[in-house]
């Protein structure tokens, strides 16, 4: 497998890494060469625009493009901020990039893209891909994707990634030229391996299981949270009716009028405050969603391990059977049942020349088989090593990110409670003047 990943691994300590990053790389000698891209370059996805054009089947379609801006970091230190380089990319191009990365670095947990279609929506959000809120959230998600790749010790050095960021027109050709599409494992092949592998590394099996659980629990959480958010929205909005009625009512009252009127205003403010709250809730949901999709990437790495392990096992098994055949042919004993054995018994033995030829062939095959097993064994070992490093890195990142997400959720709740206290205290004052 032409694996560009191995080029980047050097057995040298890297002084460009920050202390915490080297700590994160744990006790291994495979420290990735080259600092991550973000040290050299600023990346953001600044805007989104609608375009119309002809698609593959020559039909008019509307799609959104995103502006990817890059700027060299050292440029700003000179006091002037030069205009960033920029180019437009469609979502499908991001998808292509990610697929390339997935195939090229199967031992890495590749950062996910934001969702293609809006899921887990509640009534306030639309499921329409053209909806400006959706587009905006997707823009943020795409930027997040690029930043994650650029921060990754291995992925950030990828040339195709760099090409994606800097070459408007040439990058697709560059990507296709790597021939990555041919290297993609078929789903069927992978599935087959999952069922038949005998000695998969337990850690990977556990990780896969964890990935399943994570995906299931986050899905459930997103669903439940979306429903609750919908309801909460309703509760707040109904209070606007108080505003309206109090206002009308105040018109017929003398002493009570002022108190009612001003209380009504606070009710309106209360109803309006839910919009901000729910925007922040959506942000939290997006953070959860990222890890929902990350779970998939994690599982992909585990499945790849199962595949490499399976292929090793297959090669070993093949070698064993070939050796057995050789032995049988050499000693003339048929130890195992084989069709060849049976037919030769039924239709007569072969000539000594035929036997010689066969033995010779088997010898070559066994030689090749041993080479293959050695190769595959190395592959497998290397995969396990580098994959586990990245999995550990991913775990730390996940723990950190999700904890931060929980903290910002708490902060958002606190802000919501404070607003609620303020509004109702104000309302209470107005009521007291009734």
């Amino acid at each position, binding site marked *: 497998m032409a694996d560009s990943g191995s080029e980047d691994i050097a057995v040298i300590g890297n002084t460009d890494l920050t202390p915490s990053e080297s700590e994160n790389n744990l006790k291994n000698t495979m420290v990735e060469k080259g600092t991550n891209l973000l040290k050299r370059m600023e990346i953001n996805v600044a805007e989104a625009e609608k375009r119309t054009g002809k698609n593959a089947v020559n039909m008019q379609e509307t799609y959104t493009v995103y502006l990817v801006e890059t700027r060299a970091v050292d440029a700003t230190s000179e006091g002037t901020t030069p205009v960033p380089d920029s180019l437009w990319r469609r979502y499908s191009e991001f998808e292509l990039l990610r697929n390339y990365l997935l195939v090229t670095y199967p031992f890495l947990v590749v950062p996910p893209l934001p969702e293609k279609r809006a899921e887990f929506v509640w009534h306030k959000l639309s499921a329409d891909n053209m909806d400006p809120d959706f587009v905006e959230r997707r823009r943020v998600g795409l930027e997040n994707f690029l930043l994650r790749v650029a921060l990754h010790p291995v992925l950030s050095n990828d040339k195709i990634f760099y090409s994606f960021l800097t070459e408007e027109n040439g990058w697709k050709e560059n990507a296709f030229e790597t021939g990555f599409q041919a290297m993609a494992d078929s789903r069927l092949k992978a599935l087959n391996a999952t069922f038949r592998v005998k000695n998969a590394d337990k850690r990977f099996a556990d990780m896969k299981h964890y990935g399943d659980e994570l995906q299931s629990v986050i899905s459930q959480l997103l669903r*439940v949270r979306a429903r609750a958010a919908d309801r909460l929205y309703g509760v707040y909005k109904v209070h606007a009716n108080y505003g309206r009625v109090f206002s009308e009512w105040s018109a017929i009252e003398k002493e009570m009028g002022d108190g009612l009127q001003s209380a009504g205003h606070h009710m309106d403010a209360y109803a309006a405050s839910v919009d901000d709250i729910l925007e922040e809730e959506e942000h939290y949901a997006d953070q959860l969603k990222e890890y929902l999709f990350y779970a998939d990437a994690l599982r992909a790495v585990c499945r790849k391990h199962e595949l490499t392990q399976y292929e090793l096992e297959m090669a070993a098994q093949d070698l064993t059977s070939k050796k057995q055949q050789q032995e049988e042919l050499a000693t003339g004993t048929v130890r195992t049942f084989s069709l060849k054995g049976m037919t030769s018994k039924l239709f007569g033995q072969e000539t000594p020349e035929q036997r010689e030829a066969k033995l010779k062939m088997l010898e070559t095959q066994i030689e090749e088989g041993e080479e293959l097993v050695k190769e595959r064994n190395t592959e497998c070992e290397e995969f396990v090593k580098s994959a586990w490093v990245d999995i550990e890195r991913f775990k730390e990142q996940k723990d950190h990110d999700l*904890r931060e997400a929980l903290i910002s959720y708490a902060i958002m709740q606190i802000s919501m409670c404070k607003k609620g206290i303020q509004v109702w205290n104000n309302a209470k004052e107005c009521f007291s003047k009734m």
Partner: protein
Amino acid sequence: MSDTILDDNASSLSIPTDIARHMLDLDEDDDLEVFSKETTEGSSFNASMPTSPGSMINQYKFEEEEEDIDTKDIFVLVDNPESHVTAIETYITYRVVTKTTRSEFDSSEFEVRRRYQDFLWLKTRLEEANPTLIVHPLPEKFVMKGMVERFNEDFLEKRRRALNRFLNRIADHPIFSSTEDFKIFLTADVGALTSHKKLGPGFLSRMGESVRGLAATVRGVRNRPEEFTAMQEYVEAFGQKISSVDKVTQRIVREQKEYLEDLKECAPTYTLWSNSEEELAEPLRGMASCLERCYQETEEQVKELNDNLNPTLHEYVLCTETLKTVLRRRDNIQAEFEAKTEALLAKHADRESDSKVLSLAWDNLVGRSPEEAKQQKQQKLEGEIMEIREDLNKMEDRLELANNALKSDWTRWKKVMRTDLRSAFMDTAEKNVNCYEKCLAVWESFLLSQRTDAEGTQVSDSS
């Protein structure tokens, strides 16, 4: 336990709950058409009522002082619902406790048991005796929807509170609280109450009044004073507004309950997640516990809405109907007065004109001289005119009394309404603030724990 509650009004049979609303209106109509004998007749049931309108007016002026808590000399409480099963029916009684220093009471403490129809009797009696005074509404007879068991705790508690409020309003009212009916309600044992009930105006006499009243309504009032028209307009508008507020509140309660349903599922999901995690397990469990606490607080908040604001608003929706009825009754009294006035004028006109043709012919037939006939006729007319005048005077008094009673009680009612609604809204706002404050504390402590944890691990990392 029998299946039908043979409750209250004799006219009510086992009415399906979906037309309970309709039943309520029917009740109101009954009350509407009933006019008591004029208060100036000094009914023996209103022994402490002064007989002249003048002193009545004076009594109303003392209202303000009488509402002072310090001068409050009677306290009533309705509590302790109990179920009673007989062969025919099952019903609930409530304990009514009275503490008073008033001299007209034989003792200072009383305890009796009363059922809903007793309360209804009291209300009806007070309305009959004071058609233009405003009696606080009773909770509805039938429960609308959502009643699975007949006497579930929630329903009983709600009803108990409403009955308690009703009785307290009566006790606070200067006129009502000094009636014999009220006293007997508070003090008499079941037997005495039953016999006292029988002494009321009979069904037939009420029918008679009812017919008279109906006739007057049909006629309509000609010269309603401006202030009563203003009252009517206010009641219309107020009714709409309070009804809207009631509906909005009910909607909020519904939405909150559904929100709680969904919120309930969040905490267990976080707990489930924490089972798969190592580092994250603790913060996830923390989240779960925060959400559970918030759930509990919100539940309490909804309960407050349901138990306090909702019933109060609902009572004022019912009040609107009472007010409309009272205004109608006043109108009817005025209409009757106007009708009588017209009758008098007609008689006067009769007296002035001398339409002789037909009557002369008749007189000749019966052998009376024209002079005699004329005199007889004049005498008769004079007699009639005198009678009508007397009636008219009584009616005028009655009208003035009714008007003044209404005006004073109106002021009183508005004050009570203002106080009631103000405190109901303030209580709700207060409860909301409390709920948010508690949730705030929960999240703040979670945040603190996460931040100190994070700092802790950072410290150990860089060591």
